[in-house]
């Protein structure tokens, strides 16, 4: 009996110290000058622009990574080809590489003056670094593995029987995918989307390197938080943090609400 409570205490205490108390303090500090001050801090034109930019990052990166993630998982699980193991391992790279390194790597490729293809792109009027495309690329890179990693085990688990049954019943590849495979993996995909969204919302390091941090220009919500904090605008920094945290909570909550009972765990 005692060990049972000890285990719970340990788990809850660990989470509380690492997560609960710090996040609670962010909330408390955001509202130290009242709700009005916090509201004003996150509705300035710079703040609104920063949230808008983060929104665009999410709206572009999440669907693309979801599409790529499902196709990549299908290739890894359902096909046999040379380089399959390599592909599977490469997908984990964004987990292993620090986001700052990702940012620097993007500079090396797309840098306007000394990048690999940056100067050529620049001549043709395409600017990647210090603008939206670079920031989107950085966000996509760091949030790439989530859908793949969530979908692969589900695909393995459902096996190929249902897909083969669909084929013998006359369904072609696309019909089988949309009518049989996708419904079977939908909770894996949904969970991957939630994690991708949360990661894209919170990305800081890689975007920080490639954005140029132009306030009201290339400043995302996380960069805005840093900017406010460095300028001793604590209310601004914490209030924007609260908005980011609430968005992440909302994403998690949305998934739990749409999930049917038997899939909750």
């Amino acid at each position, binding site marked *: 009996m005692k060990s049972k409570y000890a285990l719970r205490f340990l788990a809850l205490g660990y989470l509380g110290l690492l997560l609960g108390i710090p996040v609670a303090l962010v909330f408390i500090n955001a509202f130290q000058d009242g709700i009005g001050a916090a509201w004003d801090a996150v509705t300035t034109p710079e703040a609104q622009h920063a949230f808008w930019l983060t929104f665009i990052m999410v709206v572009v990166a999440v669907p693309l990574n979801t599409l790529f993630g499902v196709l990549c998982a299908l290739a890894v699980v359902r096909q046999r080809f040379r380089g399959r193991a390599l592909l599977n391992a490469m997908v984990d790279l964004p987990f292993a590489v620090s986001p700052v390194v990702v940012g620097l790597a993007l500079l090396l490729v797309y840098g306007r003056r000394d990048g690999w293809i940056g100067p050529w792109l620049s001549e043709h009027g395409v600017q990647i670094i210090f603008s939206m495309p670079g920031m989107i690329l950085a966000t996509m890179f760091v949030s790439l593995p989530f859908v793949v990693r969530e979908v692969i085990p589900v695909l393995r688990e459902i096996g190929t029987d249902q897909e*083969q049954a669909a084929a013998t019943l006359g369904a072609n590849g696309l019909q089988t995918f949309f009518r049989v495979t996708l419904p079977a993996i939908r909770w894996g995909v949904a969970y991957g989307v939630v994690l991708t969204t949360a990661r894209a919302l919170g990305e800081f390091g890689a975007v920080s390197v490639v954005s140029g941090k132009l306030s009201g220009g290339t400043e995302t919500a996380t960069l805005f938080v840093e900017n406010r904090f460095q300028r001793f605008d604590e209310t601004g920094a914490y209030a924007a943090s609260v908005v980011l945290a609430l968005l992440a909570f909302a994403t998690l909550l949305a998934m739990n609400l749409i999930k049917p009972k038997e899939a909750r765990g």
Partner: protein
Amino acid sequence: MSIVVESVSKRFGDFVALNDVSLNVRDGSLTALLGPSGGGKSTLLRVIAGLEQPDSGRVLIAGEDATAKPPQRRDVGFVFQHYAAFKHMTVAKNVAFGLSIRKRGKEEIEARVDELLKLVHLDGFAHRYPSQLSGGQRQRMALARALAVQPRVLLLDEPFGALDATVRKELRAWLRRLHDEVQVTTVFVTHDQEEAMEVAEQIVVLNHGDIEQVGTPRDLYEKPSNEFVMRFVGPVSELSGRWIRPHDVGILVEPTDGTSEAQIDRIVHLGFEVRVELSLGDGDSTWVQTTRTMVEELELAEGQIVWLRLEAEPVSV
């Protein structure tokens, strides 16, 4: 429709699953592919369905070369050992799947689904999900789903393999009756000789990728073409270096010409059937299958000396 398999070979790496296999399945027949696991029977079924491409050889369905056709265009119904139910669809939607792929009208689909659910005794289960059905019900649903598109041939891969013994027996008898009703050329895979004997008109014995024998259940039992088939389709006993069915040995309490002396080690009562285990003079042991009546009539007892006589020609292998 008839199925013809012509010199089909299939390897998986170094493993030879099918070694130059040829087979004829008559239109409207009910055939069992019987053999131990790894014998090639499931591979052969999957090659017929188009789920596996042979390395060489041809498959003809209704006289047409289907070798290059994908499974979608072969007009086969396939039933999997583990049901392969579409878990996110109701029973009705599962059964309707093939028809809705073929873009049939809503009323036509509904009528056909009703009819099929009645055929497999699942009327009233239309709006359940597969997870709410028992194993036997799921397999009947899978069968209705396969039959919905009126396939030219019905292929079943160990259809009762995942079910418990009672449900298995029930479904066997039921498959037999269903085949009489629907009259579609049916091939099923099993590793259970009793199942093959009970259900099929024709049995194909496969081992190590080769066909050992094709015949009626009675042919296989009475005239097995080799020792493997003899051992696989029924019990065997050895007497004077020859293989024989254990019920083809007579027990006598007095010696006569051509009998061999033996001592009874053990008498095992299995209900009506009685198994008598004996030691022969040369130290070999054997067993005889007999009946309770026989044992009582002869007053057999453990330790007793008796004489054994062949009552049928031993199989020459």
